């Protein structure tokens, strides 16, 4: 059995009791399906691929360039005060 309360807490999603029941079943079915991965033999020389192509560091000269203006950065929310985002209490 998966612990749906724990997963939803980590995922920061509030679920109704009905959703908990439905998603528990869905997740158990899908995880059983994903178990097929266990059957695949992976030799020790196989490294994980995090990017499908080789990526190289992109650097630039350390020159100050204009960035998004504060007013624009705050333009999509009502939750603002004195030029800052306003959020819920964190402590």
């Amino acid at each position, binding site marked *: 059995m998966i612990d749906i309360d724990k997963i939803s807490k980590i995922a920061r999603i509030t679920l109704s009791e009905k959703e908990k029941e439905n998603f528990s079943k869905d997740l158990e079915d899908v995880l059983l399906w994903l178990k097929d*991965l266990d059957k695949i033999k992976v030799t020790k020389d196989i490294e994980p*691929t995090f990017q499908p192509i080789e990526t190289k560091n992109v650097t630039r000269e350390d020159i100050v360039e204009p960035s998004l203006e504060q007013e624009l950065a705050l333009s999509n929310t009502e939750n603002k005060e004195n030029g800052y985002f306003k959020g819920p209490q964190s402590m």
Partner: protein
Amino acid sequence: MNYKDMQVKQFIEESSKGNIDIEDYHAKIFESIEKIQKKYNYFVTIPKRESLKQAKAMNKNKTKDKLAGLAVSSKDCLCTKGIETTAGSKILKGYIPPYDATVIKNIKDDNGIIIGKTVMDEFGFGTFCTNSAYGIPKNPIEIDRCCGGSSGGAGGLTTAINIPHIAIGESTGGSISCPAAYCGVVGLTPTYGLVSRYGHIDYANSLDKIGTLGKSVYDTALMLSTIAGPDPKEPTTINTKPTDYTKNIGQSIKGLKIGIPKEYFNGIDKDVEKVIRKAIDRFSELGAKSQEISLKTTEYVLPTYYVIATAEASTNLARYCGMRYGATEEIKGKFNGYFSTVRGKYFSDEAKRRILLGTYTRMAGYRDQYYLKAMKVRTMIINDFKKTFNTFDAIVAPTMPNIAPKFKDIDKLSPIETYAMDNLTVGPNLAGIPMISIPCGTVKGMPVGIHILADHLKEDKMLKVASALEKVLK
């Protein structure tokens, strides 16, 4: 001028000479898409006023090179300055990006005009484009069938509109090829990293690729020439030089070797298989040699894809918390409680399902079993493709195992049955290789798409093969 059934190539030639009234053309575009929208629902937003303003300004401009005023639609996952961008999600309703995605900027710089934002599955989570908060797009050929996902609006629109237009789509696991196949148009997904993802609303960073849908291979090659190239704002872009991809159209494919993977025919619709086999037979008259091959890792692709894609999605979607943009609630309570409430209220079932799954497979104790293992299997899948491309110039296979399903049949599918529909497209997407789907025939009057895959950055070969096949199939 009459733009009906005019090809993009002809439009650009005429417009570049100053023979097209861009304002008149765009007025006709809006007349057409407003009618189409009422019947099929392909758009989330139609920014008519802004687009007509640009068309008016362009009319006065004497130099109309490159896209020359062409109408371009964008999937709603790309940020468009001043135009609402939702990625198909309720959680982004009302979000007005303060900047353009690099792809949008490139289109505007090349004199393209954005005519609208097309409907998609929420954040790209879907195979049939039935998971959008902004209505379901209907197949332009049979209205009780789906367009395919997740770039469903782009696929449907490209078929339905008969005035020159090209669409921008995005693929994580097959979201360009699938709607292209189901709607009967061409869909090009480039090599991972060839097109900048800056300003794209991410689904899975190591898989997302922005591409294009058009009525012909030429149209997609033309748009690729505009959107491809390195971007200092996007560190995974590849340092390529400006390229005119249309030069590959009409080139001979004599002597090319085409691999046909036998595993891609397992369990597919028999009538679809017949159409694909018939199209493959045409390679001989083009002087290309097709040969059956085996891609043994095909049986691993689905679990590998769903582990990686959902793991990456679950971290990407952490940013939607009802604070800085999109849906919001009255701020009260503690940090985590507030975020969890907003996310619980505004994410759809499929988004929740994928976030929960991705969270689980990254959790301590399961990470090695699922996430790391999938990343290693991905290496094996890439090696399998790479080995094939040592001998073969391209791989050709069916794009989808079926024709566009009816909505009433989609409703009966479980999540796993739906995910299994991606079997033929997730492999090349995991490998980050370029792919193009072109129409190759019909079954019960519905289009069938054939998929042409090539090695990383071998878009030239892929386009040559696609355009040669397109010509003989017409």
